[in-house]
């Protein structure tokens, strides 16, 4: 297992290296790291900064300088805020991880519940309603869904019932004036999590439904039923256990999609996480934030994929990890 994991990680290193170099090259071509200083009327300043940052050297040397700084923990200074990059990314990552973890838990649970329910009652009214809902979920622009959610679940009830606060908040992840409590966090979390996961739940629930249907018509389930195992146990112990594998693979494949969804969700709900950080940095051409951002998301996607493969092996003993 350990050997498998380390080999996979080693194997992804070249992908990350080449990817980060291409990004470095693209970002350096598109943006001018000295843009801010160009307005200063001091011809010597530009020359000094060019010299200090090594901008007059070849692209490979520049990349090497940046990479060795990155690996030794010297991530440079943001040209947008003039703050150090590492704490900026650190705090954004903390916020985003909270949203991401709740999103993953909710999306997986919802997909399993919907998928199992639909499969067990195939072609029933509720199955057809959920099939319809998944088509809708897939055809929605997520940001529009989020905005409509705000209007329907937060603004309308507040206006109709005359509350001084909406039931679900739609700015940030906690109220600045109150002590952080579970209720407060939950009231902030509901709308962003729904926005982030609507498309994923639509897709994942279809996967669970399909693999549950496969499992429910298989011989070992028939055997279990013939032995007199109760329905609930057949579904949870026998069928669902086999349906987990494909779901986990899809979850891993979609992890890049999930991180992309953060851009939209955090923008709508003014959440100061990685998505917002990316957009703010991109709009101001903040090279020193964009590069570590891309590397960190890349590593996250690779690690998630690896974790999925390992989990698959643990859940399904037939898949031997070698």
């Amino acid at each position, binding site marked *: 297992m350990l050997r498998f994991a380390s080999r996979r990680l080693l194997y992804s290193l070249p992908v990350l290296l080449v990817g980060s170099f291409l990004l470095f090259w693209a970002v350096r*071509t598109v943006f001018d790291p000295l843009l801010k200083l160009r307005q200063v009327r001091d011809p010597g300043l530009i020359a000094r900064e060019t010299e200090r940052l090594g901008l007059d050297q070849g692209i490979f040397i520049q990349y090497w300088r940046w990479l060795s700084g990155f690996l030794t923990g010297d991530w440079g200074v943001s040209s947008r805020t003039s703050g150090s990059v590492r704490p900026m990314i650190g705090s954004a990552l903390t916020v985003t991880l909270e949203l991401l973890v709740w999103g993953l838990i909710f999306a997986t649970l919802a997909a399993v519940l919907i998928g199992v329910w639909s499969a067990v009652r195939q072609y029933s009214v509720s199955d057809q309603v959920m099939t319809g809902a998944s088509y809708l979920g*897939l055809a929605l*622009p997520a940001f529009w869904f989020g905005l*409509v959610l705000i209007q329907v679940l937060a603004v309308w009830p507040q206006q109709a019932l005359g509350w001084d606060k909406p039931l679900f908040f739609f700015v940030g992840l906690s109220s600045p004036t109150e002590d952080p409590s579970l209720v407060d966090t939950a009231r902030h979390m509901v709308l962003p999590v729904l926005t982030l996961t609507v498309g994923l739940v639509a897709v994942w629930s279809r996967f669970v439904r399909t693999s549950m249907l496969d499992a429910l018509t298989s011989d070992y389930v028939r055997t279990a039923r013939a032995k007199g195992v109760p329905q609930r146990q057949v579904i949870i112990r026998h069928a669902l256990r086999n349906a987990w594998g494909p779901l986990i693979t899809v979850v891993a494949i979609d992890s890049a999609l999930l991180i992309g969804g953060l*851009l939209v969700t955090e923008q709508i709900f003014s959440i100061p996480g990685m998505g917002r950080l990316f957009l703010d940095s991109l709009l101001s051409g903040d090279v020193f934030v964009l590069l570590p951002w891309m590397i960190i998301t890349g590593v996250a996607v690779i690690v998630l994929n690896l974790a999925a493969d390992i989990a698959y092996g643990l859940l399904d003993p037939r898949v031997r990890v070698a």
Partner: protein
Amino acid sequence: MNEVQPQTSATIRTRSTFWRRFTRHRMAVLGAVILTLLAAACFGATLVAPYPRDQQDLLLGPVAPSAEHWLGTDELGRDYLTEILYAGQVSMLLAISVALIATSIGVLIGAVAGYRGGWIDDLFMRVTDLFLVVPAIALLALALQGLGHSPLAIIIVLSLIGWTYIARVVRGQVLSLREREFIDAARVIGATDRQVLVRHVLPNLGGVIAVNVALAVAGTIIIESTLSFLGFGIQPPESSWGNMLSQASGLIGTPKVYLLYFPGLFILVTVLAVNFVGDGLRDALDPRSTASSASSRGYS
């Protein structure tokens, strides 16, 4: 050099089977009808639209949907239905161009990689790995920030990033096709690689390609609107459904919130219809595959 010509009777039979299978998929037929009507309304907007384009009525200002203005009017008193129909031209043209270009690139690269194998295939797999690691939306935003937001730039960037999915699918298909007897037969009678690919391999990919074009159209409409919302899409005064939506996104909690609903509904209905047509195409052209559109998308 002998080319095996397809028999006419067989072609006719396939075509009628196609229609029979496609029309059996009721939602696909409904989707096709809705799409045709929508496209006709948008591209015939000069005839159909209730008001001339960009006709302002500043005294009227924004009004809610009514008998005169079915979908209401915007801040400048312009009829919103008229605006949506004209914006639909941009959204649809953009989506169709991207779908066709991205699919062509993907089919070409995927077919060559799968057929030739070796280092070309290895290079191809590594390149698509790169695309899997970075969120597509971030890559798109980065590229558009560099290239500007003209419709042409958007089409180019979306196509250059959207080809990987179909390329992987085509590669897989070609890998299994190239081991089949009729390919061997073609090679034995002296067909060149290009002839084998164009005459014998490509025709067998028709189903996959058609379905992918449909899915890519749907995916492009959604991703263009998302990019508009984030500020990287088509810019005013040019309008698309995406930037109408993003302009209306600040109206939550105000009486003008109805402006937010309609462009989104047009996107929703169009994408639903395209997805249904895609499902119908898949059932009709590739009966072995049973996956629904809910399990495969362009930009992942």
